[in-house]
């Protein structure tokens, strides 16, 4: 008997910032491991060191450095214009053989915004207002690496600023800094987290006991349909039977209402339920939303690759351990 499982994936929807899919024929431990890896161990780029040359703004150095760290940094595929996995392109700074930093393990951004210099470029009616320094002012030294200004075109159209707002400056204020971005994982600091949300829910297994249901009156069946706040049941008009709604899997929230109502309807407490709703043990509905640093499908692929590398690493360590036993 082969102990290896054979998981299946079916994609429900795919956008650059979000992916929804169904993972089936595998255990909850795989689903949970994928979720934990996506949240904590997918490598991304984020600003890690900041050298300030000039800061006469209202926010102090560490405040601005903290904000810079949280800006999502994209490693771009210039052909398709998507944010992709940076794991192969960069080395983590602990592994890199350079002394301090080099283009192999880090990316440098420069920012130089002087209110008095930039103000003349603004339209007349805005010249008295404070100026927003946004992520568009960060100039990278690597053409493949840019800050992620917006999640998608919709967000860009609705926004008031040209990018992620870092600080607002007024007359006489000047911000000049050099920021170094490095690769890291979310376990070290949440700024390296590639996802906003990575969750999964269980596929609902809804079983209707037709035999027992035929003993119910029409009003009782209507009660069962109405008590569910997620509307997973329907009353078929033609036959008068209780049926499961078409998209029940999307709506199900596993509430207790149905169970409690059935307790009152049953003739004896040890009778079977008319309708049972249970968690499936091997089918999961995932929803992964990115922050804009990486496309959602790349986050998922990266997490599976991290898992693969981890298993191979553990296997090689076990081989060494066995030899030395």
């Amino acid at each position, binding site marked *: 008997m082969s*102990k290896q499982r054979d998981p299946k994936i079916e994609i429900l929807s795919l956008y650059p910032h979000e992916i929804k899919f169904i993972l089936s024929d595998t255990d909850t431990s*795989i689903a949970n491991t994928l979720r934990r890896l996506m949240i*904590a161990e997918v490598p991304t780029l984020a600003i890690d060191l900041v050298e300030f040359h000039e800061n006469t703004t209202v926010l102090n150095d560490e405040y601005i450095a903290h904000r810079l760290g949280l800006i999502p940094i994209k490693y771009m595929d210039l052909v398709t214009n998507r944010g992709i996995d940076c794991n192969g392109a960069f080395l983590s700074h602990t592994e890199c053989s350079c002394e301090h930093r080099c283009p192999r393990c880090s990316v440098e951004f420069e920012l130089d915004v002087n209110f008095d210099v930039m103000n003349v470029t603004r339209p007349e009616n805005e010249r008295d207002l404070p100026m927003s320094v946004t992520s568009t002012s960060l100039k990278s030294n690597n053409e493949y690496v840019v800050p992620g200004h917006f999640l998608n075109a919709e967000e860009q159209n609705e926004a008031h600023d040209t990018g992620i707002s870092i600080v607002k400056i007024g007359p006489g204020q000047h911000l000049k800094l050099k920021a170094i971005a490095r690769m890291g994982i979310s376990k070290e600091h949440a700024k390296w987290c590639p996802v906003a949300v990575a969750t999964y829910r269980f596929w609902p297994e809804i079983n209707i006991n037709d035999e027992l249901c035929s003993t119910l009156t029409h009003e009782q069946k209507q009660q069962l349909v109405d008590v569910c706040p997620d509307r997973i049941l329907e009353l078929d008009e033609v036959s008068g039977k209780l049926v499961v709604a078409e998209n029940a899997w999307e709506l199900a929230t596993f509430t207790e209402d149905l169970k409690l109502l059935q307790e009152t309807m049953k003739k004896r407490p040890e009778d079977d339920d008319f309708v049972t709703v249970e968690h499936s043990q091997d089918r999961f509905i995932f929803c992964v939303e990115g922050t804009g640093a990486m496309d959602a499908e790349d986050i998922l692929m990266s997490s599976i690759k991290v898992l693969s590398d981890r298993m191979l690493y553990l296997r090689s360590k076990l*081989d060494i351990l066995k030899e030395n036993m």
Partner: protein
Amino acid sequence: MNAPERALSFLLDEDSNEQKITYSADTKVSNAGTFTINKEDHTVANLLRMQLLRDPSVRFVGYIHPHPLIHRIDLKIQTASSTVAPIDVLQSATEDLAGETDHLITQMTEAINKWKKENQSGIGQFN
């Protein structure tokens, strides 16, 4: 001031020559032993444990993550007979998981390519 370095939760401590996996056989129970895996947490431990439970030659398997601030897990395995050692079942479990993960990679790429072909603009919805 007393906060430990965050990187130590996933990087092995080179100064003290920390090993990734160590094993100590159980003295009181036959065919049993405990693997101590450093710098890992529930992510890997639960995965290994559930995979080991599928192996018929495993009589007992359990893991402990002693404290959130202590970055190691203890995985205890007892096999059903002395012909199969705990390290053998753990090796085959990691093999199976590596195979399952490769399978996932191919499934994932196929599913994405199929989706992109069916929805040429790359943006669309199921049903």
